[in-house]
């Protein structure tokens, strides 16, 4: 049994198809990611999982229950961190957690001890009596995640958990999410940060325009599509002849190459160093020449011909 099973899941609204018959499974105790640019259909998909948006067609089972038939039961066992923080600004920090606990019918004493524990875990214990508006962006995010854990959920859904946070705040959130995973909580997150996806996800799907393009472990996806390394080439005069020359002279060393805008991406078969060497022998001037480890972004680029931020 899996935590989430989607089969031919489709969502249409206002006459447009946001999710196009996708299939995926989230296993228990894993961190599963939806990686894709804005507008890929990630949020629409998670909205259906936590029973906010009705499913147009297809099958969607969460924690073994049909989202159409058992929304309240499903929601009682989920934690949801929406894209936009929607903490209650009329309530103070601790009250936010206690009032939320009421919606799950958690007895007051349990709610209180659990809320204090969560504030501790998220480094917010000294803010318990403060107004929500007084918190920094990172603190608000942590409080929103803490709130999602008030009911001890089996599955936590995080929609863009660190979008808009500064790097320090982001790493703090990642740290806490990793600890949650170690405790055996199933995590499902959407992101357009490849770093977030590779840092946190055991498995992920790459989504674009309502479709799932690929699925797998981050490392495997990179190895399968790209290899170990990437050589990024910027040609000063981006002429077809120059590109052709590069490809001709290095082709035997490459699995593949990709032209994106002003950049040429070379995916070496083995050592990137050898490709670099071959390039430096060419009678061309490069604006930049970079040998770097392959990432999920390269996978996305290869699959869509566009960058993730596009």
């Amino acid at each position: 049994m899996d935590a989430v099973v989607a089969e031919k899941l489709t969502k249409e609204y206002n006459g447009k198809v946001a999710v196009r018959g996708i299939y995926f499974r989230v296993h228990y105790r894993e961190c599963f990611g939806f990686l894709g640019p804005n507008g890929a259909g990630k949020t629409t998909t998670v909205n259906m999982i936590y029973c906010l948006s009705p499913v147009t067609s297809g099958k969607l089972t969460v924690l073994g229950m049909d989202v159409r038939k058992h929304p309240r039961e499903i929601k009682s066992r989920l934690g949801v961190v929406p894209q936009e923080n929607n903490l209650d600004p009329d309530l103070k920090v601790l009250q936010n957690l206690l009032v939320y606990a009421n919606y799950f019918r958690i007895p007051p004493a349990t709610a209180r001890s659990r809320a204090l524990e969560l504030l501790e875990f998220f480094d917010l214990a000294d803010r318990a009596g403060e107004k929500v508006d007084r918190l920094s962006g990172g603190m608000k995010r942590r409080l929103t995640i803490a709130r999602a854990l008030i009911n001890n959920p089996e599955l936590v859904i995080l929609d863009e958990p660190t979008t808009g946070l500064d790097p320090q705040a982001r790493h703090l959130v990642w740290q806490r999410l990793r600890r949650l995973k170690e405790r055996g909580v199933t995590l499902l997150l959407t992101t357009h940060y490849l770093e977030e996806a590779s840092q946190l996800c055991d498995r992920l799907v790459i989504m674009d325009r309502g479709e799932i393009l690929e699925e797998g472990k981050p490392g495997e996806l990179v190895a399968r599509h790209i290899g170990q390394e990437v050589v990024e080439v910027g040609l000063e005069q981006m002429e077809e002849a120059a590109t052709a020359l590069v490809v001709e002279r290095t082709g035997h060393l490459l699995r593949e190459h990709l032209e994106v805008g002003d950049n040429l991406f070379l995916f070496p078969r083995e050592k990137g160093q050898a490709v670099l060497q071959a390039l430096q022998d060419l009678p061309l001037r490069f604006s930049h020449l970079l040998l770097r480890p392959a990432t999920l972004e390269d996978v996305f680029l290869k699959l869509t011909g566009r960058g993730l931020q596009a």
Partner: protein
Amino acid sequence: MRFPDVSPLVWQVLRRHLIVFSRNWVTNLTFNFFEPLLYITALGVGLGAYVQDMEGLPYLHYLAPGLVASSAMFATTYECTYGTFVRMEFQKTFHAMVATPVSIDDVIVAEILYGTFKSVLYGTVILLVILVLGLVTSPWALLVPPVLAVAGFLFAILSMIWTGLVPNMENFNYFFSLIMTPLFLFSGVFFPLSGLPKIMQDLAWLSPLYHVVNLVRSLVLGQVHPGLLGDFLWLSVLAAVLFPLSLKLIRRLIIK
């Protein structure tokens, strides 16, 4: 039309509103209390000095019960337009709630009940004020709070319908200047409608506030007659009929 999906969790949502209310009730109440008091002084005492009598009553006695009804109406309509809209649109409180076992219908019903609560509370406070001023002359006045509850329920539903139809801040001004103010002026709060042209009297019958004023004034003055059941029934039936519409209109703003 979908059957309402309402559960006892409505109480937990309502409780949230009451917790927030309990934190600033003094400011809240003082503000709403001040305005009717101004009307009582300016019109009841000031203008009243020039009015011989109104349907056989000193003007102050005539006016005061009407203000109980209109204060209740305004308390509810402000809450369920501006208040509801801020929670729904700016604070995204509804979204946070529906991610828990709470359903969107639970959230909407709790809003309506909170509006009802405000009607009963603010109306009753003004009732107590006019009691202290010696303007309540019958124990029938004890039935005013239940009347305010039905009235509040109806006004909450009407406000939610407006909020659902034109969900933006500017349009609430139209609601108050085009709908609430005429209701306030032509529902028998300040003068009997018998002096108006027939057409205005018929129109007034359509005003919910007219029926609330009839009920409250008769109870406060002890002029109880079977016709009041008609007013009560009119309010109850309209509330029952419009309730599903308010659910439907707000639902579609949240569930997409």
